[in-house]
């Protein structure tokens, strides 16, 4: 269809399986500002330490509930947001990748001069937010995005021809009649035609608009496309059309996809590998079949249990999850899922906030609570106006009604006049660990930490 010189593809062939995007310990924090001076009072940790490999020719699925940071991560990878910490590397070799992992595992001040040189070289050649302009030129044209809302991501004042031709114009790929022919070719490949060239976006249905978005993303023959919920605004019958088109294009053009979605059925169909996100972190990662047939993390299990399947046994009832997603500005300690986890253990990172939330949910927190003084996340003193309520809270925390896992993690409850001092056993944050070959989970039940 379109012929591209070796040079425009950045001078590399398209070998299967080599890394396209290497994401290492990426964090994206958004400041919370308050008051007239816009003082920063906290950070929303939208993405908080994610590592991910995306290899050539594969589709990586990113699933999670709203607010888990999957779109933010997608935007970081596509260069629309700059990560606060960590690096996203484009097209590094296998050797460079293992070398990078080795260097990153070494503490900052213990790195040798050679290590630093290596990192500096990667930063200028491959890291997307610091790379030199030549490398950036190659990266930008090889990484495209298709957004969820095809209504707002297409300029309503431009004709389809201009929308799809825009990338080609910017990169001076074509002009005049040749440009039009290239646009027709692109429209053709997504199931539209020459008759659609001189129309405005509002004249199309949702499915057709998403096709236009895809054609625009394909214009520069990219290597990698971030698909951010491309079908969630569409009806099922149209969604099926778009998913088929995306698969067809991937086969023909040898594309690599990062497929972001909250719909497990769609991700299962489209992805080779899946990463499940919860509150800014990846909690489980593995091949699509492994993850759906043998989910490891309780959160993945909960997601699967809540997902209605049209072809499943009708007597099977879907199961929900208790509670709400915690505040990403103040995420729970230990495993971030422990506040809602049905199989939480005493080792999952119980903390002061859990005790206070439990007291207030069971309506046992008296109005006389005058202050909570935190010594750390795991230790605090609750001050009350009168001694009676302090004693009541103290005995309540010592009673059998406290959830067993939390009670076991509660190291100390001390009532002293109008104060209750509580201390939990400290726990480290959960890290993603390889449980089986290529199947990673961040749950204490699957690690040898316990």
């Amino acid at each position, binding site marked *: 269809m379109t012929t591209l010189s070796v040079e425009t593809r950045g001078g590399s062939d398209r070998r299967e399986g080599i890394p396209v995007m290497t994401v290492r310990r990426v964090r994206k924090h958004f400041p919370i500002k308050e008051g007239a001076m816009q003082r920063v009072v906290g950070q929303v940790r939208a993405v908080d330490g994610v590592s991910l490999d995306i290899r050539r020719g594969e589709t990586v699925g990113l699933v999670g*509930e*709203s607010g888990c940071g999957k779109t933010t991560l997608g935007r970081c990878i596509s260069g629309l947001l700059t990560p606060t910490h960590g690096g996203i590397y484009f097209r590094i070799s296998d050797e460079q990748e293992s070398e990078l992992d080795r260097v990153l595992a070494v503490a900052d001040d213990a790195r040798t001069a050679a290590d630093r040189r290596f990192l500096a070289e990667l930063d200028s050649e491959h890291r997307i937010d610091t790379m030199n302009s030549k490398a950036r030129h190659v990266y930008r044209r090889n990484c495209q995005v298709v957004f969820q809302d095809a209504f707002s991501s297409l300029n309503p004042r431009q004709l389809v021809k201009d929308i799809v031709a825009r990338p080609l114009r910017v990169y001076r790929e074509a002009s005049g009649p040749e440009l039009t022919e290239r646009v027709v070719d692109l429209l053709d490949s997504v199931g539209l035609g020459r008759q659609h060239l001189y129309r405005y976006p509002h004249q199309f*249905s*949702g*499915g*057709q608009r998403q096709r236009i978005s895809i054609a625009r993303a394909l214009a520069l023959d990219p290597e990698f496309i971030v698909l951010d919920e491309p079908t969630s605004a569409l*009806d*099922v*019958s*149209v*969604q*099926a*059309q778009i*998913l*088929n088109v995306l*698969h*067809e294009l991937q*086969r023909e053009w040898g594309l690599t996809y990062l497929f972001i979605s*909250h719909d*497990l*059925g*769609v991700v*299962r*169909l*489209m992805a080779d590998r899946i990463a499940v996100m919860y509150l800014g972190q990846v909690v489980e990662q593995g091949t699509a079949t492994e993850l*759906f047939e043998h989910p490891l993390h309780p959160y993945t299990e*909960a*997601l699967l*249990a*809540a*997902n*209605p*399947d*049209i*072809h499943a046994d*009708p007597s099977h*009832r*879907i*199961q*929900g*999850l*208790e509670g*709400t*997603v915690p505040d990403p500005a103040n995420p729970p300690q230990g495993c971030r899922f422990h506040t809602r986890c049905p199989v939480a253990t005493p080792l999952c990172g119980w903390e002061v906030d859990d005790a206070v939330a439990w007291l*207030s*949910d069971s*309506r046992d927190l008296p109005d006389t609570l005058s202050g909570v003084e935190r010594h750390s996340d795991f230790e605090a003193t609750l001050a009350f106006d009168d001694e009676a309520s302090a004693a009541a809270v103290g005995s309540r925390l010592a009673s059998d009604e406290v959830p067993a896992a939390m009670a076991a993690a509660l190291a100390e409850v001390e009532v002293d006049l109008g104060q209750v001092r509580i201390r939990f056993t400290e726990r480290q944050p959960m890290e993603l660990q390889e449980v089986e070959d290529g199947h990673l989970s961040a749950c204490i039940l699957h690690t040898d930490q316990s």
Partner: protein
Amino acid sequence: MTIPVSAPQDTMTTTPPLVATVQDLRVYFKTKAGLVHAVDGVSFDIRDRETLGLVGETGSGKSVTARSFLRLIQSPPGVYAGGRILFWSDEARRTGAEPVDLLTIPRHQLLDVRGNRIAMIFQDPGKALNPALTIREQVAEVFYQHRSEELLEGAYGDASLLIRRAAGQRTRLAERLLLRLPPLRQQATKLRRRVDDHVAAALNETQIANPRKIMDSYPHELSGGMKQRVMIAQALACNPDLLIADEPTTALDVTIQAKILELIRQLQERHQAAVLYISHDLSLVRQISDRVAVMYAGRIAETGRTEDIFHEPLHPYTRGLMAAVPSAGHTRGRLAAIEGTVPELVDPPASCRFHTRCPHAVALCGAIDPELLLVGPAGHQVACLAYNTPDQLGVDPSALPDLSRRTR
């Protein structure tokens, strides 16, 4: 198309009594392009304590049908062009009174039904709740509007006129000031406490943790799932006979969705209400409904018991829709998509609405408008010419569509 006022199976003792019946409902919208037939001859029954699932894609007219129950369609541009929606309240059923036609009853009577006998849960709880009022005020309004007599009962032997007006939320500014003065303040406070108890009880029923604390918060302080629970509390406060749920979980995450679904199911049982559940998600409707009606382009394509529809869908559209939902059995790139898009509903011709996208369509489909035919034992009805006999239509057998043969 003529429809009998009561279907023959009504007389059978096994079927529960009707709560509402929609007969040949037509709702049109006047636009510059012409008259849009958003709902064009829809008929169905809702029976006591059952859940009817209304499924369809965007623009199929499912929400317009639901909103017509409470006459919530803005007019203009909306026009109720025909048909009726008969409703039997619990009381009417007991006394054997005549049903009311919700499309023609006077406004004051309609206001008595809205939120009282028929309640609605809307799709987006963020938009349906008033951002400027606390949860307490919003839920209390239902009680003030429909339960003012009950609020005055017992505690006030002969409540003063002012208290009566306060219980019906009919006080003016001067009167409200008067209610703050000593002689009446005590009674006014008592009334407010009583309403608070009702609100707390209603919220408690939806399993919200700490309802007294929630009452004082504003909608923006709550999560999506919590807001939807408040909406449900509001809707069920007056123990309605019919609950209309218009995509109540579309804006929520799957884990919360499952909880809300469970809650609706539980509360339906407790309140013994009938539910009209509207959704675009077939798998959800399968979970919650007893019967299903599949809508396409302002018409009902197929209706019947949930197990019949999902076990053996008859209409090509229902089949296509079910095959298009991705699941474990599918191979990538081989998803059975329904080609094309929903047709324009501006002055539609007399033809099967689905014939432009149907894989089995023949010439006849573009010329004859299929009627809902009873095909199965348990009220399984389908509107497709393939299930007609040649005699019914007066055509040659070979002219009928054959669902085992693809024409495109």
